[in-house]
């Protein structure tokens, strides 16, 4: 078992309630603390954009939605009661606005887009090779994956590995991309993601699985290509 498992997750709070860190942040925002504001904007911007892109017809519209969301968040701060975590509250505002905007743009994406990669038969990237030859058990590996044994670990901070992972994420279908970014990059819990994206536990896991399979494949190709 790898010593780096499970990955450290800074904030494993379930959908609610808000933490003391959230309360402090809300206080700082209300007090007009620009550094605190830029920090929270910076932390969530990229994932907000990806979630908005689930509903918005174009990236430009998604960017507008994210911007409008921050205004709505600031206007609503006084009403934030901490029954949910600050981030799930922010993302619920985002999803509402993105959904409305998507509907107005006459593009009823949500269902189809959130289903991508959930329906059977779309496990692209899961093209492992198994053999059913009767010398040992059926459905076994043709050639064994070998542990990377730190080959990724020691190079995690290398720009090339990061670029490989980022490119793999960008190449995912939108729903897989939103789920893997929130879960594995941002460290959200499964319940938070299900709540925010209105996914069942099972669908969330399928999307996460498909996404991880593709990112692993990209890393494998990078490592083998050395």
């Amino acid at each position: 078992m790898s010593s780096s498992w499970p990955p450290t997750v800074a904030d494993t709070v379930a959908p609610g309630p808000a933490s003391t860190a959230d309360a402090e942040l809300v206080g700082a925002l209300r007090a007009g603390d620009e550094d605190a504001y830029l920090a929270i904007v910076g932390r969530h911007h990229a994932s907000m954009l990806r979630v908005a892109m689930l509903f918005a017809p174009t990236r430009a519209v998604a960017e507008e939605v994210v911007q409008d969301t921050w205004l709505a968040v600031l206007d609503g701060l006084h009403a934030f009661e901490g029954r949910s975590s600050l981030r799930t509250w922010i993302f619920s505002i985002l999803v509402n606005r993105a959904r409305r905007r998507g509907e107005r743009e006459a593009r009823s994406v949500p269902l189809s887009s959130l289903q991508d990669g959930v329906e059977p038969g779309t496990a692209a990237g899961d093209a492992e090779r198994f053999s059913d030859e009767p010398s040992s058990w059926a459905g076994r590996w043709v050639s064994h994956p070998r542990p990377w044994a730190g080959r990724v670990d020691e190079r995690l901070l290398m720009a090339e590995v990061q670029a490989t992972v980022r490119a793999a994420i960008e190449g995912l279908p939108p729903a897989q991309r939103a789920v893997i970014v929130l879960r594995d990059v941002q460290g959200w819990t499964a319940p938070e993601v299900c709540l925010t994206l209105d996914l069942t536990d099972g669908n969330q896991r399928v999307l996460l699985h498909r996404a991880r399979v593709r990112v692993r494949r990209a890393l494998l190709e990078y490592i083998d290509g050395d």
Partner: protein
Amino acid sequence: MAIDRTVPPPGGISCRELVALVTEYLEESLSGPLRTRFEAHLAACEGCAGYLDQMRATVVALGRLPPEDLPADVRARLLDAFRTWQRR
């Protein structure tokens, strides 16, 4: 053609099946009996152990991505919005 020489896979799960269950395993959402079979297979199969290791490394790599920089124009617009909001 019936293949009667086929050995049952360890844990009664084939590698192909195990690979499809990896995320459920890591999410700790496999039922007790299935988890036991999964682990029995893992203990006997180098290939699947290697695959699981790679999936864990993948998740670690994802978790260590540095935050993306906020584009300068976005930063400027959002900061502007914050200042306007404060003055209200």
